[in-house]
C-alpha cells in the first residue's frame, strides 16, 4: 500500500517534469515557425534592387503580375524613412533619456523622482496606438499634414522610457565607491557623472539604446497616423514618409503588392532579432 503510494507520487513527479519540458519546448515552436515561414517565402525577394528601389505603384505591380514577371522595385523608401525617423528620434531621446535616467538614479528618494519614475512606467505601458493618436493631435493637426517629424516624435516617446530605465538601472548598480572616489578627487558632480559614472555605465546604457531601437523599429500603428507613408524615396522632414513596417501594412492591404510582404518582413525580422541578440550578447559581455 505504502509502496504503491510512493510509486504513484513519483509517477506524478515525473509526469510534471515531462509536461514542463514538453510545453516549454512547444513555446519555442512559434519562433521557428515564424522565422521559417518568413525566411522561406521571403529570401528569394532579397536582391540588391530590393534595397535600392522604392515601392512600385499598384499599377506597375499588376502589369508585372499579368506578364508573369517578378514585381519590380523594393523597399528603399521604407528603409530611408525608418532610418530618418529613427535617427531624429534617437538624437533627442538618447541625451534626454540619459539625463532623465541620471536624475532618477541620483534622486531616487525625492517625491518628484518617484513621480517621474512612476510616469516612466506609465508611458512604457501605454499602447503604441495611443502614442500615435496623441502625436497626431500634437503634431499632425497643427502642422496640417502627416510628416516625418510627427513619426519621429512618436518613436521618440516610445524610446524614451526604455532609455531612462536602462540608464537609471545601470547607474544604480555601479558601486557607490566609484562616485565617492571621483568626488574625493575634487571633481564636481557633473564632472564625476560625465567622466566617471557614465563611462562606467556605458555598456548598460548602450544595450538599453539598442533594445529601445529594436522595440520601436517594428512599430506600425503609431506611424500610420503620423508618418502615413509615401511611395518614393524622400528626405524631407515635413512631408509624409514611409517606413518598413508601414510598407508591410501597405502590402498586406494591396493584393497587387502582396508578394513583397515577405521580403520586407524578412528584412525587418532579421534586423530586429539581430539587434536583440546583439544587445543580449553585449549585456552578458559587459556584465563580466
Amino acid at each position: 500500500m505504502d509502496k504503491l503510494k510512493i510509486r504513484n507520487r513519483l509517477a506524478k513527479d515525473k509526469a510534471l517534469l515531462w509536461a514542463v519540458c514538453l510545453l516549454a519546448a512547444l513555446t519555442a515552436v512559434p519562433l521557428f515557425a515564424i522565422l521559417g515561414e518568413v525566411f522561406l517565402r521571403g529570401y528569394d525577394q532579397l536582391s540588391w534592387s530590393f534595397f535600392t528601389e522604392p515601392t512600385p505603384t499598384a499599377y506597375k505591380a499588376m502589369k508585372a503580375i499579368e506578364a508573369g514577371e517578378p514585381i519590380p522595385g523594393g523597399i528603399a523608401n521604407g528603409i530611408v524613412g525608418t532610418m530618418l525617423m529613427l535617427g531624429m528620434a534617437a538624437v533627442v531621446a538618447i541625451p534626454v533619456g540619459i539625463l532623465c535616467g541620471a536624475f532618477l538614479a541620483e534622486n531616487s528618494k525625492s517625491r518628484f523622482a518617484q513621480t517621474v519614475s512612476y510616469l516612466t512606467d506609465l508611458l512604457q505601458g501605454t499602447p503604441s496606438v495611443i502614442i500615435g493618436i496623441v502625436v497626431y493631435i500634437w503634431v499632425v493637426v497643427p502642422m496640417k499634414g502627416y510628416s516625418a517629424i510627427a513619426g519621429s516624435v512618436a518613436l521618440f516617446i516610445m524610446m524614451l522610457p526604455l532609455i531612462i530605465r536602462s540608464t537609471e538601472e545601470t547607474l544604480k548598480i555601479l558601486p557607490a565607491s566609484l562616485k565617492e572616489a571621483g568626488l574625493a578627487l575634487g571633481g564636481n558632480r557633473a564632472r564625476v557623472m560625465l567622466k566617471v559614472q557614465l563611462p562606467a555605465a556605458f555598456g548598460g546604457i548602450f544595450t538599453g539604446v539598442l533594445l529601445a531601437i529594436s522595440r520601436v523599429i517594428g512599430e506600425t500603428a503609431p506611424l500610420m497616423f503620423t508618418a502615413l507613408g509615401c511611395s518614393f524615396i524622400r528626405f524631407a522632414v515635413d512631408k509624409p514618409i514611409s517606413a518598413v513596417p508601414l510598407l508591410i501594412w501597405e502590402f498586406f492591404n494591396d493584393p497587387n503588392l502582396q508578394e513583397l510582404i515577405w521580403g520586407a518582413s524578412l528584412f525587418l525580422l532579421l534586423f530586429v532579432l539581430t539587434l536583440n541578440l546583439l544587445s543580449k550578447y553585449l549585456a552578458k559581455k559587459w556584465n563580466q
Partner: protein
Amino acid sequence: MSDKLYKILLFAAALIMPIVCGGVLYALVTDAYDAFEHFGFFKFLTSSEWSYTEGAEQYGALPFITGTLMTTMLALLFCIPFSLPVALFVGEYFKGTRVASVLSTVTDLLAGIPSIIYGLWGFYTLRPLIMALDISPQGSGILTASLVLAIMIVPYAASLSAEFIKMVPNDLKEGAYSLGATRAEVIRRVVFPVAGSGIFSSYVLAIGRALGETMTVTMLIGNTNNIPDSITSTGNSMASIIANQFGEADDLRLSSLIAIGLILFLITAFINMIGKIMIKRARIA
C-alpha cells in the same frame, strides 16, 4: 559645469516625463470631449451602435470594450499553460543551466518580433488552419486573434514569473525535501505559494500588454463593429477599431475614436499600475 547648473539640467530633463504624460492625457481628454458631450459619457460606454451614416451618426464603445476584454482574457487563458512551464523550466528545473538560457533567449526573441509580423503569420498560417479545422468559416475572429496574442505575451509572463520562482529561498525548498516531498510537491506546496504573488503580478502585466496590442489584432480579429456573440465570431478591439478607422475618420467619429483611445489608455494605465505595485510588494516580501 557648476553643481547648480548640473542639477538644473537633470531636473529639466526629468521634467519631460510629467510634460509628456500630462500632454498625452490632455490631448486625449480635450479631443475626446466632443464625443462624450454628444453621447454622454455613460451612454458612450454602454452603447453598441457604431454607424456613420451622415446625419444619423451613432457611436458607442461597448463592442470594442467587449472585444478587447474577450481577446485579452482568452489570450491569458491560452498563455498560462505555456508561460508557467517555461517559468518553471527556467526558474526551477533547469535553473542556471545552458538549456535554460537557450530557452530564455528564445522567449526574448519571441518578445522582440514586431506585432505586424505576428499578424502576418497569424493571417497566412493560423487562419487557414482554423478554417481547415472548421472552427470558423472566415478564419479570422476573436479566437484567432487571441491565439496569436497569447504567443506574444508568453515571453513577458514567463520571464517575470521565472524571476520570482528563482527567488524562492533554497532553505525552504530543502526544508520541504527533507520532509520527504517530491519535486512536484515542493513546487505545488512551497514554490507556488511563496512565489505566488509575484507570478500573479506578472500575469497582470501581461494583461496590460495584451490590452493594447494593435496590429496583430487588427489583422486577425475580422473587423466587424458588433458585440461578438461567441469566441469564433469576428469583432474589433479598442486598439483595432482605432487602427482601422482613424485614418479615414473626422469630426464626431474621430472624437469617438479618440474617446476609445482615452478609455484604453486609462484601463492599461490602471492595470499596469496595479501590476507594478504588486510586483514591488512581491519583491520586498
